[in-house]
């Protein structure tokens, strides 16, 4: 059972991750409240034992709304990273391994995307396609492609020069097999670091874009759409935007630290028989 987390921070972060998955799939297990339930007797109620994050302008429990927001948050973060990975990993492997004009063309495309401001790009796309979760995933996925591509390309260049890849070539192993069986497994570590980092960026950009009305639209619940609504009450009920913002920030931080720990755990130099 060597894959089980052992250090306290690893155990803590694994628990947080597990909670996030539960919140996404079975949010009703984590809160007794209906995130859309109206309670006119408790409008914008301050945090209490009954409502740890207080209630919103319709009396719904803010914690419940944050929990129900995890589903969309995870879908956007995972969806955009997977989408980017599907495109960027094969391209990065080919560019790094083959070099030459393949590398030149792919790198040029990636650098062009990278030089484009994310928010400006998002505004353009949303303006032409309309604000929706799908558009958001598409925009984020597109923006993440060069980031994953550059990492995979660089790592591939390093591993291509190692003895075991040269030995496989000398043995007559075909290029696709070398890429999939020798190179890809050896760049999983750096990929595992960047994936949660990108997911953290996805969470933050989702919050930002939804906050300015370009992402998830209320009444759909995401942390960004909650922020958008909560900002109207930042004087009367400061805990409301504060609670949502803090959760968003902590989630992003947890993702980044989790990635570092995961990378250390898959490092093969720690593996013995």
């Amino acid at each position, binding site marked *: 059972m060597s894959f089980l987390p052992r250090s306290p921070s690893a155990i803590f972060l694994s628990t947080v991750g597990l909670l996030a998955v539960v919140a996404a799939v079975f949010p009703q297990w984590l809160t007794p409240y209906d995130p859309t339930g109206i309670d006119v007797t408790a409008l914008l109620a301050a945090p209490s034992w009954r409502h740890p994050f207080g209630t919103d302008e319709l009396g719904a429990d803010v914690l419940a709304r944050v929990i129900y927001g995890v589903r969309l948050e995870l879908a956007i973060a995972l969806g955009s990273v997977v989408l980017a990975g599907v495109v960027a990993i094969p391209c990065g492997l080919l560019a790094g391994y083959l070099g030459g004009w393949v590398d030149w063309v792919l790198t040029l495309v990636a650098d062009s995307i990278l030089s484009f401001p994310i928010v400006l790009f998002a505004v353009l796309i949303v303006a032409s396609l309309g604000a929706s979760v799908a558009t958001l995933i598409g925009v984020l996925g597109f923006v993440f492609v060069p980031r994953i591509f550059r990492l995979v390309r660089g790592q591939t260049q390093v591993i291509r020069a*190692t003895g075991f890849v040269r030995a496989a070539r000398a043995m*007559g192993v075909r290029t696709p097999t070398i890429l999939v069986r020798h190179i890809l497994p050896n760049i999983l570590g750096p990929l595992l670091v960047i994936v949660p980092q990108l997911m953290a960026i996805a969470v933050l950009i989702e919050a930002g874009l939804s906050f300015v009305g370009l992402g998830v639209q209320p009444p759909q619940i995401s942390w960004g759409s909650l922020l958008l609504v909560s900002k109207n009450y930042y004087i009367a009920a400061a805990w409301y935007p504060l609670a949502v913002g803090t959760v968003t920030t902590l989630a992003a931080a947890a993702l980044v630290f989790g990635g570092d720990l995961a990378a250390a755990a898959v490092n093969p130099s720690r593996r013995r028989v």
Partner: protein
Amino acid sequence: MSEVLLEAEDIRIRFAKRSGRKNQVVRAVDGLSFAVDPGETFGLVGESGSGKSTAGNAAIGLQELFSGTVRYRGEPMPVPGSARWRDLRRQLQVVFQDPFSSLNPRWTIRQALSEPLKLHGLASAEERDGAIARLLEQVGLGAELAARYPAALSGGQRQRVCIARALAVQPELIVCDEITSALDVSTQAQIISLLQDLKAQTQVALIFISHDLGLVRGVADRIGVMYLGRFVETGETGKIFARPLHPYTIALLHAVPVPDPEREAARKHQPLHGEIPDPADPPSGCYFRTRCPYATDICAAEAPAFEEMEDGHRVACHHVREIEQGVRRS
């Protein structure tokens, strides 16, 4: 005389190199010819940057040539990636310098040794474990190591696994590219004695690349001494060690310590000064003249011919006659 196994004829290999704004051409290998007979060990010797590894890779078709030909059993080396080239992978193998990066860290030794067996259909799934155990035994390792990952092995053990992986396809020639330079001295000796045993058992030919003449002496039947991509001296190991004729070979031999303190102290040293010149900008005439104690005007003016002194012993030096007489006098 038996059929020649591998023959390189006037091979040249160039690399493009950018330094600042200038595009330079590095002549890594600059007109090299040699032949390896079946079962023979050919030692390629030279400093770092002399082009010996590049030449070794080219010999087995892993390095594109600028000009010249490599023939294996009389047939020109096929284009890399072609079906014929792929077939040749069973005959021509290589072991690299760094045992720490030569094994996939995510694969067990069993997986590493299975790859060539599966790829070339050399052992069925049932026979494979037996074949792996035999390979490990052949290189002096226990079969229980098969379940381990490379991280659990020492450098010497890993290099033995790399040799076993090369042997798995029962090749006719293995290029050993500085295979001992990353190892301890005691482990180096073990690897050399392993190679000697393997030569006797399997009749495999070796191209043994090293900068350490002492090690080459232990395995090679013939030696080619390289300097800046060219041979300066080739010949049978015994003859070269008994009577080195090129000033570079003489200097290299002086750098090999004698395992006897009194004789070592009594030896006259002729150390090499300076660095090997930049292969993108080699000296005119004889490449070695900038470091050569015998250099005169003619050395700068023209490149020396590669003269055959006696059977198979060739030297490229304008002053070889003087050196020969000097050597005889002492």
